[in-house]
Structure formats: C-alpha cells, structure tokens
C-alpha cells in the first residue's frame, strides 16, 4: 500500500512540469472574466485591468529574471507556491460556508448547447483562438458561434479536428465509464474479453458498457 502511494505520488509529481504557463493562463482568465462580467451585467471598474494583466504577468516572470526554478522549461515556481504537496488543501470543511455553484447564468441554454457541440466535435482552445481571429471576436464568443454553426450543419472556416489514431471515441469512453460505474473492474473486463473472444479487455469494456447503457445484463456479476 505504501509502495502504491509512493509510486503514484511520484508519477503525479514527476508530471507537474507539464502544467501550462501561469502568465498565459492568467491573461486568458482576464479575458474570460471580462466576458462573464459583461454577461452578468456586473458593474465593475474596468480601468486598470490591462495594467493588472501586465503586473501579474510580470510577477509570474520574476522567477525567471531572478533565477527561480524552471522545471523542464515549462513550470514557473513562485516562492509563494510550494511545489509539493500542492494541495495543502487546508482541510476542506465538511460544510463549507460557501458551496461552489455552477448554475451561474454565464451562458444561456442555447449557448451552452452550442458550446457543448463545439467541444463534442473535438474542437478546442487553439481552434477557438483561430476562429476568434477570423471573426474578430473574443474566444468565448467564437466557440459559441462555432458551436451554433455546427448545430445548424454549417462548416467552420477552419479545418475540422482530426482524432489521433488509436484513441477511443467519446461514445466508447462513455461506454467504458458505464462499465465501471456499474461496479465492474479490469478483471471483469478480462473475463468478458475471454468469454466474448474479444482481442482486448478494452474492447470488452466498450461492448459491456454498450449493453449496460441499453439496459441489458452481462453474463457475469461485478
């Protein structure tokens, strides 16, 4: 057990360096927040926002200038942000005084539907940036507009995303998830693969998940 903990923790910590650049993310956060504010009609002082971005971006760059750590050239480590254990999740109270809420009216139902369509089709942030440049809008608006176009059966002015070969489709992932949610595990997938003469446990998970989602029962119990 201790060995698992060490192995997993080591694998996770060893890949922290893949995290995106804080300065770039912060700039996007400002852009998105601006959109959300506008949508929510929250009166908020806009003056100084640009300066804020510059100041924060500068702050993220300081470690570079003063010789701070740079793991693998990708993650800036600030003195105020110890690298591990990251969470120090100040013990989360059993009943936090404020609960996270996701029902904020940032998007209407139609917009949300359009955005989901956009992402479900495999488009991502980079595509949003390209579209925003073409349409001269912000990225959020571009994603929503693109999603609506996809819903309307129209083509976008950029190349459609190509799913890398060998990766499961969204539907297959949902089927595999249904398999696990029903209480089955990897051993069960192996058994089913043998039973159904499928080449891999993954194929069995997908086939089994499909049956589960169709309300059918499997030949083995979880």
């Amino acid at each position: 057990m201790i060995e698992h903990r060490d192995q997993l923790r080591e694998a996770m910590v060893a890949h922290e360096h893949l995290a995106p650049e804080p300065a770039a993310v912060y700039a996007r956060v400002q852009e998105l927040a601006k959109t959300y504010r506008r949508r929510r009609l929250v009166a908020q002082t806009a003056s100084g926002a640009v300066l804020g971005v510059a100041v924060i971006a500068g702050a993220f760059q300081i470690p570079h200038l003063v010789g701070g750590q740079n793991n693998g050239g990708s993650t800036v480590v600030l003195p105020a942000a110890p690298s591990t254990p990251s969470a120090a999740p100040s013990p989360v109270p059993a009943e936090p005084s404020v609960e996270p809420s996701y029902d904020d009216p940032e998007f209407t139902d139609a917009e949300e539907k359009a955005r989901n369509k956009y992402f479900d089709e495999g488009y991502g942030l980079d595509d949003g940036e390209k579209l925003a440049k073409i349409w001269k809008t912000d990225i959020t608006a571009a994603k929503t507009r693109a999603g609506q176009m996809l819903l309307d059966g129209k083509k976008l002015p950029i190349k459609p995303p190509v799913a890398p070969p060998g990766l499961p489709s969204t539907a297959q992932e949902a089927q595999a998830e249904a398999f696990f949610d029903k209480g089955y595990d990897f051993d069960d997938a192996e058994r089913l693969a043998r039973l159904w003469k499928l080449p891999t446990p993954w194929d069995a998970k997908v086939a089994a998940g499909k049956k589960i989602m169709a309300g059918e029962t499997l030949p083995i119990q979880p």
Partner: protein
Amino acid sequence: MHSLLPACVIGDVTFENFAVARLPSLLRYAIVLTGNRDLAQDVVQEVLARAQVKWKRISEADSPEAYVRRMVLNEYLSWRRSWAARNVHAVGERLVELDDARGGIGDHANHVVEADELWNRLAVLGRKQRAVLVLRYYEQLDDDQIADLLGCSPATVRSNASRALKTLRLSSDRPNRIPVEEKS
C-alpha cells in the same frame, strides 16, 4: 503595486494576490487531475474566470484556496467536452525524452520510465477513479475528506480507489511492475 490593481479587493486578499500566489499550484493540480495540458488550462481558466467574477463571495469562504481547488475538481468531473481529441500525450513531453535530454542514465532513467508508464496508464481510468487517486495520493487527503469533496460515502471512495488500483495493476495481490503491453 497592489494599490494599482483593479477592484476585487476583499479584506486583505485580492483576486490578483490569490492568482499570483496560487495559480502555479492550481495548474499543477489540474495537470495531475486531467493528465492533459490543454484540458488543464481550459479547466483552470474557466474556474478562475468565474472565481474572479464572484471573488467577493469566494473570499468569504473559510479557505478561498480550498474553495477554488474544489471548483477545479468539480469542473473536471463535470467536463462534458470531448476527451478523445484531448487525451493525447505529446511525444515531446514524455519524461523519458526529457530525461534523455538531460543525460539521465541507469536506475534513474528506469525510475523515470516507470513513472512515465504509470502516468500514461492513469489516462485509462474514468474521471471519478482518477480523481480519487489524485485526491488520495497527490492531495494526500483521507477517504472521509475525499468523500466529502465528491459527495459520496467513504466506502464508495475506497471502492473507486480499489478498482482504479486494480486497473493500474497496483493492487496488493499483483506485482508492482507495470506490464508495458497492457493498454486498457
């Protein structure tokens, strides 16, 4: 410099102060949680943009950081967008290559390869199972805390963890070495 920053000032903690101090840590948490740089960026961006808009409310939480980390977790778990196109490990980012570039050899290299393999295998887990492992081993929370975060019972946490470890071939009745050929 903080006096020049825009609004969002609540007590002693401004959103900007929070972001400067905690964004790198949030991004590390997100990359471990999602396993994908683009998705980690999208999740953190969405969460922080919302957080900035309602910073007054968040800053009144007992721990704004715990609150935002919880938002990141929820955002990841509720992400309804395409995983197929995102769940890609860029070849150039593989640890083994980074290690080669640094001239790593011998046991250390093997160690790195094993960590890299395990990281790639984490990608086959369902979101809940991966989240349980991240919360347990990376965030170092106990099962009661994880259950509270995920809104389930500690028994469900243990069950998810057990299934995840089995999938990763890390359960106690299995060898710890990870078979390279296993893909699902």
